[in-house]
């Protein structure tokens, strides 16, 4: 995989490999295994699982740029599908609306509890989270530098509405969901979504801004 001829290349290669490792295995472990079992013990742990999925695994995956390999490996069926997704991912704000819609939908108590009771719906929930998150991060992180303002707006919007939802969970009078051990458990979940969950969006905003400014100074130097 790596033919390092230079220490920097080796370091870079190791970094990429670690990211790949975390993204792939972390993703698997989040969904099955001990982390998944822990997620069933309450709203707080459940929130941690979802945040890992949408806020860590999805963006890492996008950073690895698997699209080219997927296209090559998926044949006649996959190519138009991935091409279609790629077209969608050119619009950061629409992907933010989609992602936001999925988040709010699955946090309606009736729908949330449905997913708790039926493994099929729970799988659908995780799939929709993962898919919309991947599309969102694809649009935000891989967008052309020219569309950076839209990516930043998409990040701001997502930061705000997830913080909002987290705040509602934090200040609620009673638990909304069946898996809440007590009110404190829900408050913890809300704070995780609100405060910790804001970190990936803030970091991404910094990253997008930096990339944008570099692009602009390169363009000015060439002009």
């Amino acid at each position, binding site marked *: 995989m790596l033919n390092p001829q230079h220490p920097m290349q080796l370091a870079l290669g190791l970094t990429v490999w670690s990211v790949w490792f975390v993204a792939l295995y972390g993703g698997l472990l989040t969904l099955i295994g001990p982390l998944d079992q822990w997620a069933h013990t309450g709203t707080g742990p459940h929130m941690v699982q979802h945040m890992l999925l949408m806020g860590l695994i999805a963006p890492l995956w996008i950073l690895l740029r698997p699209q080219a390999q997927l296209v090559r490996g998926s044949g006649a069926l996959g190519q138009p599908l991935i091409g279609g997704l790629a077209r969608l991912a050119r619009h950061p704000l629409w992907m933010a609306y989609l992602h936001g819609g999925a988040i*709010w939908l699955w946090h*309606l*108590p*009736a*729908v949330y509890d449905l997913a708790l009771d039926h493994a099929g719906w729970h799988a659908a929930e995780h799939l929709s989270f993962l898919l919309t998150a991947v599309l969102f991060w694809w649009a935000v992180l891989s967008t052309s530098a020219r569309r950076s303002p839209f990516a930043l707006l998409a990040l701001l919007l997502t930061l*705000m509405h997830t*913080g*909002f939802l987290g*705040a*509602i969970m*934090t*200040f*609620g*009078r009673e638990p*909304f969901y069946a898996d809440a051990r007590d*009110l*404190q458990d829900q*408050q*913890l979940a809300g*704070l995780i979504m609100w*405060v910790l969950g*804001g970190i990936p969006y*803030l970091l991404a905003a910094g990253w997008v801004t930096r990339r944008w*400014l570099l692009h*602009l*100074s390169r*363009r*000015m130097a060439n002009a």
Partner: protein
Amino acid sequence: MTETTPVQPHEATEQTRSLHQTFSRVWANWPGLGSLAAVNHTTLGLRFMITGLIFFLIGGVLAMLARTQLALPEQNILTADVYNQVFTMHGTIMMFLFAIPVLEGLAIYLIPKMIGARDLVFPRITALGYYCYLFGGIIILSSLFLGVAPDSGWFMYTPLSSAEFSPGPGSDFWLLGITFVEISAMAAGIELTVSILRTRAPGMTLRRMPIFCWYILAMALMIVFGFPPLILASILLELERATGMPFFDPGGGGDPLLWQHLFWLFGHPEVYIIFLPAAGIVSTLIPVFSGRPLVGYRWVVLSIIVTGFISFGLWVHHMFTVGIPQLAQAFFSVASMLVAVPTAIQVFAWLATLWTGRVRFTLPMLWIFGFLVIFVCGGLTGVMLALVPFNWQVHDTHFVVAHMHYVLVGGMFFPLIAGLYYWLPHVTGRLPSERLGKWGFWLTFIGFNATFLLMHLTGLLGMPRRVYTYEAGLGWDWLNLLSSVGGFIMAAGVAMIVLDLLLHARLGRRAPANPWQADTLEWATATPPAPYNFASQPTVTSRHPLWDQSDVAQQMAAGEGHLGEVQQDQRDTLGTDAITARVAERCHLPGNTWLPMLSAAALAVVCIGLLIRIYPLALAGCLVAAVFLLRWSWLNGGHPLAAPLTDAELAGKDDDQSPPLESRTLDGPGRWGMIITLLANGTLYASLLFGWFYLWTASPQWSAPADSPLATLPLLATAILVTVLTLLYRDRVRHLQGGEDRHLAAALGSLTVLGAIATGAVLWVMVSAPLAATEQAHDAVLMVMLIYLFWHCGLATVLTGLQALRVRLGYVSAHLPYETRVLQPFWVYTCGVFWLSLAAFIGLPMAWGGG
């Protein structure tokens, strides 16, 4: 100001003299009383600052009254009732009528000069802002003289401030008056944002922008996002007081804590809105007096942005004792401490700059030293207050009063005076007195510390805030006496400063050009500055133009830069790209006009009408204001009075000599202004959403009916209609971009009719819905939502109708497509708000299962 012959940065020749005369003629204010119609930023900036300083003195007198009452125990110089009015007005005046306006005024005065522009980008809005501030301030102040000043504290906690416990007009003066004054803050916020982003001199990329402009940009954006929660809260509380809609009354399903959340969502960013411009002054002065550029420019920019962001997430630290979940307290405690980090970065950047420079210790630097000591002390006590168990002891005691004054006086007043002394030679062309200045500093510094240093101890010894008197023998006696004496010493210091300001206009020495050898462009104007700032605009190639581009001042004054001549007798400045600062368009700016003052006067009538509860008067005021405001919007850049289409333009020939006029383009500052305004509007709406969700999930006695009382289908139909309308409008604009304007008037006319139908539908739903808005908070919020939709749909319709008319008159066409691009975001916003309202206020409650 006395007549001082301006010091020019250039050698005057016959040519340049006539050039400057032409500019002066086009840019001058009208003489005599006509100067009240001025829209020039230099004039208005100074007016903001002088008015602000007058309010400061009034607020200071109120403070002296309070300190006199508290000097000895168990006094009755002021009764409890009067004392409550005094401290409420002291806080209100200082925070809303002094701190923000004076810094706004400084920014309005300085920003165009620093970015190499001739004026701010919406001059009439600057004037509107000033008059709203002046009239609103007078209205609030009048309550004091009428003996009915607000008396529930400057943060007006409910239920104390609501109709049941404050039945007099005091709270109404606050709610209506402050909202009126806030128009001025919003105007400044929007205008400064767009001006800094779109009218910088060519070549002044964001990285070459003076650091002061970064601070003001952050302040302006924080105003845009930070004030709307308070505006909404004030509207809701005033509605509660006037009509009984129980937003904050637990009996009706409301919650007093909702007021606190909305207030502090504004309140915490507010203190950074006050601190950042002052820190900007410090960041500007230190490099000049160290003779070297600011160390860590990029770090400081990052700190400014991070401070702006984080400050919106800290508001809960004002509410640690209300019963917030303990986990939330821990999180907010940590976050509140972390905001010290970007501030520390700035302090150490300043230290590093001083360390690596050769410092000239002038009078401004003396004030900056005072700032450092006092502000760092205040910041340290702030970190202490962020620790919850300690906060539980000292919250609402004089410890907080001490902390607050340390950060506000140290962090804002001292830098302000430093900036005053620094820029005074620029404003008047004369230097103030060193001796008076030093006396002023030491009296103020010593007096301030005498008043407030040991006040920390007073708080630790248990003295609560806002008490009009106290018993003897609690250990507070000598401390209060000391604070009161200190107050008088500080007052003497302030008097020295005022004296110095007044005297220097007569007796001060003439200042040479650029007396401090500064690096930023404002020192390239004449001192005092001409109303047009520069005879031509520069091309900037460095972050320190006056240090690195040695001839730039002379070149500009000789007319050798951009826009070096008056075209068509118009005032103008260049519009440039936000990031690369390449020339994009020529912005034609309006001249003197009475419309802003008249509009503000009409709004003042509305305010007074609502205050005295004579609603026909308020309605009349609204109509008159509407006439003035619509007339104002009518006379914009596309109007033939302003810039008639030339023959060349009509023939379709490209004029590639000079940059296009803004009204001929598709993306000028006006569109940006609309978008920034919509961001503020959106924040207001988001606050309403927050209130809705908060009450629904956290209000103690919330009750919601099983089915929504609103007719869902008609609202859905209306939303679809508005969506269709928006799409059709967008389509029209796209045609216009392609140069096609046939049938434009008719198309806009039909869209107006559709809009009227939609507006009518919302009105019908509003009137026919069985909402018990004065009994249930649930219904009250729905009513506010409907009013919001009605207002936006209606306004968009009216503006579209007017636009159709303007097409007929030839003010809008394929040659002048710009206005449609400005109105388009407004329709998109209205459409978005319709769907969001349907989802959040009707759909979600149904899906949630009835709450």
